[in-house]
C-alpha cells in the first residue's frame, strides 16, 4: 500500500463567484469607474451634464412656445425657443418668394425626387440603371420645367423668386450630380499619360482647391458676366451653380485619384492584356473598383457641398440660411429675445438632419460594398 499522508475528509467548499463580466453593474464598473481618474472624469461628466441639460431642456421643450403660440408668449421673461415663429414662417423658409398658389409645383418636385431617390438608395430594389437614368437625366429636366414654368401652360416663375430650402436642395442636388462626372474625368485626366491633358487637369484641380469657395463664387458672380459675349445675361442662379460645381468637382477629383492609385497595377495590366481600349478599361475594370474604395470620401465631399451651399448667401442668393436670416432681421411682428436664436437653431437642425443622414448612409454603404478587402 502506498503511504497516504493526507486524506481530505470533507468536500472543498465552492470558490466565490468571479466578478461579473457582463450585465449592468459590470458595464458601469468597466466603463465608468475602472480607475480613480476614470471615476473623477465620470463625476466631472455627470456634473457637466447636470449643469447643461436642464437649461437646454427648458429652452427647447419646457419653456418653449409650441407652434401655434403667440408672439406675446415668446416675449415673456423666461420664454424658451419660439417654435411658433418657425411654424408661422415655415412656408417662407421652404419656398422663399415662390408664389403661394404655385406651391404644388415645388411640392411635386420634392415628392418626385423622394420617390426616385428612395429606391436608388435601397440596395435590394431592382432596375437600378433605369432608376438612375430617370433620376439624373429625366428628373432634372422635368423639375426645371415644373419650377420655372413657361411650358404646358405653367406660369413663369423667375429664379429670383425661388428661395429657402428649395434653393438649397436644388443647388446641392445639381452640384452633386454634375460635380461627380466632372470630378471623375478630372481624376482620369490627372492620371493620364498625355502631358498636356495631365497639366491642364493638375492646374485646374490645384488652383480650385487652393482658394476658398467664396472667392470662386465672387468670381462666378462678378467675372462670368464679363466672360460672356455682349448682350448675354447669365442667370444669377446659374452663376452660383457653376461656382459650386467647379469647386466640388476639384475635390471629388482628388478623392477619386486616391481610389485610382489604390488599384494594383496588375488590374490595369490585366485589363490591357484583355485587349480592352482605354474607356472600356476604365469603365469596366478600374473605376468600379476605385469608386468603391472612395465612397466615404466622395460622400464627405457631398456633405461639404451641402454645407457650402449656404455660402451662396454671400453672392446674394436666397437659400435656406438667407431666408432664415431675412426673417430674423425683418419679421417685426415676431421680434423677441429668442427669435433669432430659434431661427438659426431651426436652420442648423435642417442642415444637420441632411448631413448626418448622408454620413450614416455612407457608413452603411461602406459596410455593404466591403467585399473582402478588410479581413
Amino acid at each position, binding site marked *: 500500500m502506498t503511504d497516504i499522508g493526507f486524506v481530505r475528509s470533507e468536500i472543498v467548499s465552492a470558490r466565490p463567484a468571479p466578478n461579473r463580466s457582463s450585465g449592468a453593474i459590470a458595464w458601469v464598473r*468597466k*466603463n*465608468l469607474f*475602472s480607475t480613480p481618474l*476614470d471615476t473623477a*472624469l*465620470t463625476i466631472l*461628466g*455627470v456634473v*457637466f*451634464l447636470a449643469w447643461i441639460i436642464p437649461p437646454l431642456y427648458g429652452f427647447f421643450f419646457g419653456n418653449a412656445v409650441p407652434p401655434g403660440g403667440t408672439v406675446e408668449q415668446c416675449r415673456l421673461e423666461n420664454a424658451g425657443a419660439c417654435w411658433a415663429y418657425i411654424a408661422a414662417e415655415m412656408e417662407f423658409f421652404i419656398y422663399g418668394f415662390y408664389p403661394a398658389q404655385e406651391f404644388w409645383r415645388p411640392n411635386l418636385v420634392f415628392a418626385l425626387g423622394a420617390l426616385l431617390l428612395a429606391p436608388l438608395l435601397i440596395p435590394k430594389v431592382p432596375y437600378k440603371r433605369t432608376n438612375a437614368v430617370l433620376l439624373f437625366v429625366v428628373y432634372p429636366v422635368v423639375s426645371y420645367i415644373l419650377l420655372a414654368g413657361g411650358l404646358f401652360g405653367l406660369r413663369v416663375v423667375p429664379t429670383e423668386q425661388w428661395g429657402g430650402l428649395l434653393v438649397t436642395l436644388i443647388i446641392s442636388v445639381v452640384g452633386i450630380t454634375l460635380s461627380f462626372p466632372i470630378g471623375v474625368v478630372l481624376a482620369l485626366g490627372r492620371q493620364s*499619360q*498625355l*502631358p*498636356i*491633358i495631365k497639366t*491642364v487637369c493638375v492646374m485646374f484641380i*490645384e*488652383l480650385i*482647391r*487652393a*482658394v*476658398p469657395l*467664396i*472667392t470662386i463664387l*465672387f*468670381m462666378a458672380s*462678378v*467675372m462670368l*458676366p*464679363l*466672360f*460672356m*459675349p*455682349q448682350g448675354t445675361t447669365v442667370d444669377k442662379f446659374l452663376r452660383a451653380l457653376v461656382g459650386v460645381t467647379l469647386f466640388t468637382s476639384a475635390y471629388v477629383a482628388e478623392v477619386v485619384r486616391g481610389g485610382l492609385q489604390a488599384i494594383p497595377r496588375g488590374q490595369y495590366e490585366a485589363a490591357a492584356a484583355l485587349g480592352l481600349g482605354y474607356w472600356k478599361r476604365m469603365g469596366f475594370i478600374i473605376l468600379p473598383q476605385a469608386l468603391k474604395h472612395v465612397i466615404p470620401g466622395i460622400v464627405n465631399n457631398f*456633405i461639404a457641398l451641402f*454645407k*457650402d*451651399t*449656404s*455660402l451662396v*448667401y*454671400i453672392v446674394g442668393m436666397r437659400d435656406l*440660411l438667407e431666408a432664415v*436670416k431675412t426673417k*430674423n432681421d425683418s419679421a417685426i411682428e415676431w421680434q423677441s*429675445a429668442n427669435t*433669432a*436664436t430659434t431661427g*438659426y*437653431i431651426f*436652420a*442648423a437642425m435642417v*442642415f*444637420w438632419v441632411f*448631413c*448626418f443622414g448622408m*454620413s450614416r448612409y455612407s457608413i452603411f454603404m461602406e459596410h455593404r460594398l466591403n467585399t473582402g478587402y478588410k479581413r
Partner: protein
Amino acid sequence: MTTQEMGHHSAPRMSFLNDPVIRGIIYQVVVAAILVGFIAWIIGNTAANLAAQNKSTGFDFLWRTAGFDISFSLLPWSRGSYYWEAFLVGLINTLLVAVIGIVFATILGFTIGIARLSTNFIISSLATVYIEVIRNIPLLLQLFFWYFAVLKAMPAVRNSIELPFESYINQRGIFVPKPLPDEQFGFVWVGLLLALVAIYFLRRWAKTRLEATGQRFPVFLTSLVLLVGVTALVWFVSGASVAFDPPVLERFNFRGGLALPPEFVALAFGLTIYTAAFIAETVRAGVLAVSHGQTEAAQSLGLKEGDRLRLVIVPQAMRVIVPPLTSQYLNLTKNSSLGAAIGYPELVNVFAGTSLNQTGRAIECIAITMMVYLSFSLLTSAIMNWYNARVRLVER
C-alpha cells in the same frame, strides 16, 4: 515596345490612327486647341465688355487713395490710405484670425479627440456628440449664430456683463485690460529666450548621454525649473513690472483697455469650434492607426506608461496625424474668408469686396486675392512635403 514595332512591321496596312502614340498626340492637340480657343474667346469677350462699359484695366489703382473706413486694423489706417494698404490690412487681419484660430482649435481638437478615445462612456459620448453636431452644421450658419444670436444679443454698453479680471462683454465686443510692460520688461523676454536655448542644449546633452551611458536625466522637470526659474529670476532682478490698463466705463463707451470687436470674437470662436471637431477626428484616426501590438511591444520592453506614449505611440500617430492636420489648418485659413459675411475686415471683405466695388477692377482684385490663398496653399504643401520626407527617413 517591341510588340508595337512588330505590329507595325507585320501589319503595315493598319491605319496610323490606331497607333496609340499618334492618337495621344491628336487628342492633346485637340484639347489644347479647344482650350486656347476657349481662352481667346473669353479674353475677346472680356475686352469687348470692358470697352463697352468704358472700364480701364491694370494695377495702377493700388496707388490711389481708398477713402473708406476699416473697422479693425492692426496697421495705421485712415481714409487717405492707398488701396495696397487696404490689401495689407486685410491680409494681416486674415493671418491674425487664422493664427489665433489654429492655436485654439489645435488645443481644443486634441483634447476632444483624446476624449473621444477615452474608455469612459460619458466622456467619449460627450466628445462624439460635440463632433457629430458641429461637423454637420455649415460654418457660415455657426458664425451667424455666434455673431447675430449670441454676441449681438449681449446687453448694451451700459449694462455690460462683468467677467473676471476686470473684463467686460457687451454688444460692442469684449473689453479686456491691456498689459503695459515697462522698459525693463525687455530683459524678461531675453531671459525667456535664454532659458529656451538652455533647454534645447540640455535636451541634446541628455540624449547623447542616454545613448552613451544608458543613464537617464529628468529632462522635463529640469526644463520646467529652468523656464520658470530663469524667467522669474530675471523678472525680479531687473525689477520689471507690468501695469494693466483696465477698460473703464464712460458715458457712452469703454475707455482704455483692449477692445476685441464682436466680428473678430465671433469669427475666431466659430473657426475654433468648427475646426476643432475636424481636428478631433484626425487625432482619433491617427491614434487608432497605431496598432495595439505597438503598445504591447513597448510594454514588453519594460517602458513606463509615459515613455510608452512619448517614445512609441505618439511619434507613430503624429506621422498619420500631421498631414491631415496641416490641411485642416489650411482649411481654417480659407474659411476665415467667411468673416466677410459678418463684417470682419479680412482679405476677401476688404479687397475682393469693398475695393472691388469701389474701383470696378473685378479681374485684378479677384486675381490678387486668389493669388494670396494660392501662395498659402503652395507654402503649406511645400512644408508638408518637407515634413513627409523627414518622417519617411525614419521609416525602413
